[in-house]
Every structure is written in C-alpha cells, then in structure tokens.
C-alpha cells in the first residue's frame, strides 16, 4: 500500500481506479455533434473526491498554470459542500466548466498527482467540470463588484484571455467594455473547439455571467480597422487589454495548396462551429466534405478537424503527422477519442504537393516519409525526410492544421507597439504591459498558440497590473524593458 504521498500524517485507504465517467458509444456519437463525455453525478463526484490523498505538499497545485487550490476544492466536494467548492475554484479560475473539459490535465495537475505515480491520478479535470456545471445548472449569483473606480478599460478580443481580464476588472470596480470582431463573443471557444467537446450553451452561459457582472460587450468591432487603439484612448478609455489570439492559419507552402478542396482547419471549424454549417440548409453557410479526407498536423486542432469531418459524413479520415505518435501535441484523451471513432493515422510523413483531380478540385496528395533524427530546439527529435520515399493518396479534401500565427490587425495599425520576430506582441511577463503606455496584452497573441488556461492566467495577471496602474499604485512603464528574443 502506498503512503499518503509520503507527507501526510494519517494513512489513507488507496482507491487505485478512477470513478469511470460515461461516454457515448463511438458508433453513436459520430452521427451527431452532441457532447461525447458525460459529467459526474454528485455521488460520483463525491466518490472520486474521496480518492484524493490530501497531500500536505500538493504537487498537483504546482502543475496548474494558475495555481488552483486543488486539494481544498476536492475536500469540499468530498463533504458535499459543492457551492463552497465551486467558490474555491473560482478564486483562481473563472471558467471551470470550460477548463474542466479542455485543459490538458494529463500534462498539468493530474501528471503531478501523487496517487498517479502508481495508480490512476485523481480525475481533477472531471471534478472541476462537475463544479462548473453544477453552478451553471443552478444559475449562479454574480459576485458583488467593488465600488466604482471611475476608470474605463477596453478589452479587445473575447477569447478566454479577454473574458477573464474583463471579468476581473469589472469585479475590481472598473467600467469594462469588451470589443469582439466576430458577431459572437468567445474566441476559439465558440469558433474553434467543436460542440461535441465543448457545448456552446456552456460558453454562452459563462459569457452571460460575465455580462451580468457589468461587462459591456460590443461585437462587430475590429480594433485596428473599425477603431484604432489610439482612438480608444480618445474615446475615454484609460487602459486597453489586447487578447486577440493566434488564429491566422499557416499553410505548408507546397504546390497545389490553394486548390479547391484544400482548406485550413480554422476555416473548416469556423464554418461548422461559428456558422453552424452542420445544420445547413437551416443555417445558410455551406460546408463541403468528401469521402476521403486527409488532415495535416497532430495537435488538438487536427483532432477536432478530423472528428468533425467524420461527423459530416466522411468515410475515411486520415491524420498525417510528420513526427511519431509519442510527439503528438494533442491531448491524449482526444487522440484516444479520435481513434475510437475510426480516425486513421499516418505517422512520420508530410505532404509534398496537392494534385488536382479531373474536376479541378484536389484529387490526390503526395507525401514523403520521414525518420526521426537528432533533437531540435524544442527537445523533440527532428523529423528528416527520407529521399525517394514519396507516396500518393487519393483524397477529396485536405484540411491543413499545421499551426496558426498571431492575428495581425492591431500590430499593423499600432506603430508604437513592439512586435516579436513571429508577429506576436511583446510584453513584460510580470505585468502583461506592452511597450505602449496604457496597453497590456496576453494569451495567444503574446505566446503564439498555447492553451485556454494559459490565456486565462495571462488575462488575470494583466487585470491585476491594470488595476494597480489605474489606482496609481504601480507604473509598469517606469522601467519597461523586455529583451526580444
């Protein structure tokens, strides 16, 4: 028997296996867009919470990018004190029902779980989701904001970074206006991550809460085009947070990449999620998917695109990734779901060119095999092409999911904003302050593509710094100096 992480006084009975969570059968679920993983019931949540060893030195907490007090909320669940548990989570995480579903827990909190060294780690993500959903179901009260500060802040971009920053600032008593370029707030949570992984009603409910906290949301405003950052200051805003994300799709730079039938995963997912093309013709936006689909890439975006293609009726969906299975950057759970649903994988291969079929649309894709060589800058072994190993696959669609760059419009129209070599906005990591006075930034626009929780963390860090700046307690520009890599 394992001791209590070696640092707890009393011995506790070990329960090696997690309380299983119910999932829809692969055969059933690929026919629609309903959520795949069902949540814990209160009883299941209490039973799972009971597995936690309540380590004195909780490593899980170190693994959480926002330092959530995990043992504390789990202890409250165990006692059935769900409201208090949820309040505990919200101290550090504004969007538990979202993070509980999409965070890569297996590389974060759950990876560090003491129990996980020998047995299955505590299902921290599922417990977090349980609390978030519990609150949403019961219609939660909005926290009382601090007395009005008389200061106004513009938040640009309504992804998890912008939403968190806006909510925190509103709670601190500032008047907050959130600007979003699309017709609906939520960022990747609404246009990228599919319904079957993150139901949109949950995102809408969370945004509704933020709205009720007093955050004013204006959609259809592209900052940089409709209004510039300088114009926001002249409109009377005292500070600006930029959380515009990294949604600009990269293409492989191969011949035939612009043939009809070759599309970016972001474009494909936007049609399906934001524009609801899977409900065409009830919704007007069309989407077209053929019988055989090849998805290029190995991240969450590739998995989402592949699984979406299956649900739209594709018969064979194949992910082509240039490294091996071990290096797949997608969440393990999502790779597992994709495989269960019948997505096939070709590892150690990358495209050379796309070729047109008779109708002028893409008809074939030529790929080349790779092998793993010496480690590269990321520490992963670099894939090297094998000469003469080219092979051809017949396809009806190619979906490109090889990464996204920062959204460019603010950088383009704000000349005094310092930009990194890859087009990201440069900030002081401690405060989120950019090189331009009064302007802060965070999330994917600063780090390139990362995670929901990282963007939330950055939004929260910036909110604290903006609050201190507006109250005259700290001036991030007194000695702003950031080394550009």
């Amino acid at each position: 028997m394992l001791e209590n992480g070696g640092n707890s006084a009393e011995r506790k009975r070990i329960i090696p296996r997690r309380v299983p969570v119910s999932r829809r059968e692969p055969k059933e679920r690929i026919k629609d867009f309903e959520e795949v993983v069902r949540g814990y019931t209160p009883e299941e949540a209490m039973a799972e919470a009971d597995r936690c060893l309540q380590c004195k030195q909780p490593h899980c907490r170190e693994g959480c990018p926002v330092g959530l007090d995990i043992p504390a909320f789990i202890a409250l669940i165990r006692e059935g004190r769900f409201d208090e548990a949820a309040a505990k989570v919200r101290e550090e995480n504004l969007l538990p029902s979202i993070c509980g579903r999409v965070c890569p827990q297996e590389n974060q909190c759950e990876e560090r779980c003491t129990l996980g060294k020998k047995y299955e780690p505590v299902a921290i993500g599922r417990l977090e989701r349980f609390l978030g959903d519990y609150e949403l179901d019961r219609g939660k009260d909005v926290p009382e904001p601090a007395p009005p500060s008389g200061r106004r802040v513009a938040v640009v971009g309504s992804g998890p970074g912008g939403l968190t920053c806006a909510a925190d600032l509103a709670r601190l008593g500032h008047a907050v206006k959130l600007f979003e370029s699309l017709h609906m707030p939520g960022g990747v949570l609404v246009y990228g991550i599919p319904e079957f992984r993150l139901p949109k009603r949950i995102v809408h409910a969370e945004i509704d809460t933020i709205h009720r906290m007093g955050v004013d949301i204006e959609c259809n405003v592209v900052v940089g085009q409709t209004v510039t950052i300088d114009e926001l200051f002249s409109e009377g805003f005292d500070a600006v947070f930029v959380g515009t994300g990294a949604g600009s799709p990269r293409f492989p730079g191969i011949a035939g990449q612009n043939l009809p039938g070759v599309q970016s995963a972001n474009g494909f997912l936007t049609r399906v999620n934001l524009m609801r093309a899977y409900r065409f013709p009830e919704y007007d936006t069309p989407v077209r998917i053929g019988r055989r689909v090849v998805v290029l890439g190995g991240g969450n975006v590739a998995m989402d695109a592949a699984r979406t293609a299956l649900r739209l009726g594709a018969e064979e969906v194949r992910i082509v990734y240039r490294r091996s299975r071990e290096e797949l950057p997608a969440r393990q759970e999502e790779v597992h779901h994709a495989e269960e649903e019948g997505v096939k994988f070709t590892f150690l291969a990358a495209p050379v060119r796309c070729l047109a079929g008779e109708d002028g649309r893409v008809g074939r894709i030529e790929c080349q095999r790779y092998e793993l060589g010496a480690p590269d800058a990321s520490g992963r072994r670099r894939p090297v092409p094998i000469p003469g190993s080219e092979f051809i696959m017949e396809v009806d669609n190619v979906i490109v999911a090889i990464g996204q760059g920062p959204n460019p419009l603010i950088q383009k129209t704000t000349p005094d904003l310092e930009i990194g070599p890859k087009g990201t906005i440069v900030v002081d990591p401690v405060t989120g302050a950019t090189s331009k006075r009064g302007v802060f930034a965070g999330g994917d626009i600063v780090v390139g593509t990362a995670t929901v929780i990282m963007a939330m963390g950055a939004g929260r860090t910036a909110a604290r710094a903006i609050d201190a700046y507006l109250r005259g307690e700290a001036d991030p520009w007194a000695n702003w100096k950031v080394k550009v890599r």
Partner: protein
Amino acid sequence: MFRILKKEVLSPSVKLLEIEAPRIAQKARAGQFLILRVNKQGERIPLTVADCNRERGSVTIVFLEVGKTTRLLGNLEQGEAIRDVVGPLGNPTEIENFGRVACVAGGVGVACIYPICRAFKEAGNEVIGIVGARTKEFLFWEDRLRAVVDELLITTDDGSYGRQGFVTDVLREVAERSSPPDRVVAVGPLPMMRAVCRVTKDYGLKTIVSLNPIMVDGIGMCGACRVTVAGQTRVACVEGPEFDGHDVDFDELAQRLRRYQDQEREALARFEAECDGRC
C-alpha cells in the same frame, strides 16, 4: 442591429441600401468593404462600401442579387434591420496623384468604382471612367459618376446605350491615345477584370484589380479568401482586396469561387420554393 435608412432599386437585380453604422461611416475609405449577416441563421457575406455619410453615420452598399443571401438582403425594406455589420475591412485603394487614371467597372462594380474615382479626383488626377452594362436597363449611377470623373465612357453589350461592345474595347482605345493612363483600376466580375488585365499587359499599364474571393471572417482567420499573387499565397481580406492584376492567378480564383456551387444552388432553390415565387 443595423437599421436600414433607405432602399433603392437601381436596376432589375441591383439594389442599394443605406445602413446606419456610425463606426464604419467614420472610418471607411475608397476600396474597403464590410461583412454582414442578415439574420441569426445567416451567412457572412462581403460587400464593398460604395459610399458613406459621416453626419448621418451611414454607409451605402449596392449589390447584385445572385444567391440566397443577396436575395434576402434585397427583400429587406427601409426601417428593417440587419443583424451584424462589421468593417471597414481590407486596405483602402492606394490613392496618389498618379497623373491620369482609368477606372474600369462592369455590372455592379460601378458602385465600387465610384468612391475610387472620387478619391483619385480629389487627389488631383485626371480620371477617365469606363463602365459597362449588359443593357441600358442595367446601368446606374451615371450622373453620380459624371460628377467625379473628367471623362465617362459607357458601353452596353447590346448597344442600347453608349457604345456597343465591352469595356475592354474602349480601354484599348484609351491605351492607344497619345497620352495613355498612368494607372488602371478595374472592379467587376472576374472575367471582366481578367480581360482588362490582358489588354493592359499589352500596353504595359500598371493595373490594380479588386478581388472578390469567398470570405467568412474577414480578419485573416479562415483562409477561405486566399489567392495566389505572383506565386505567393496572399490573404485577400487582410492583404487585399486590391492586388496588381498582372500577378493574379485568375484561373485558380475562378475555380475557388465555384467550390460551394451545389450548396449555393440548393439554398437558393429552397429559398425560392419557400417564398413561393413571391420574392
């Protein structure tokens, strides 16, 4: 919601709407466009800002009814509203005093060329307008254009008004003149822009075209609007919509425009069936 302040029928299938959109009205410049969504189930479609009125806080769009969304839009009346309008998007036309500029437009492109002509004129250029329509019935905004150009040359396919023929016939004559234009700008249907580029290539006249690929977000996130220009992939909504016409891969663009054709037909057929021929 964006209220419709005025509606006009310009020609059998071309309509004008003046929409209340103060933010866009403040900022829009010649060559820029907006994206709108008529209703909750609607698709996002791009349309050029044909005019704007800063005092009234309004923008004007002129569109040809080709499919379901433009038909829905055409059915809206003054006082009704459009759910979402975002803009101005894309880069404005590069306006400088080039000397003599020929502005060529076909069909509904006449509305798009109007603000461009006006901007060139204000910058001190001599502006030659060359516009083409199928028949006299399809021609609109003649007097508006006349007010902002030095010379207006009109063609109709059937000769029912102006010269019979295509804009390219007239353009060729203008190019042959002793003092040819220093720059050509063309806006209109793809085949027309391509034909213009063929002519101007012969005469070595720099030609700017305003491309109209399929778009969704309009801020560079979907990649639907990518076009090949001088062998490079360019994102038309952010880097365009105007490019050097001699570098554009028109074949590819034409093919890409057809990629949802079946669904577009289906949507239109259903729409027509639902409204039982009343719209």
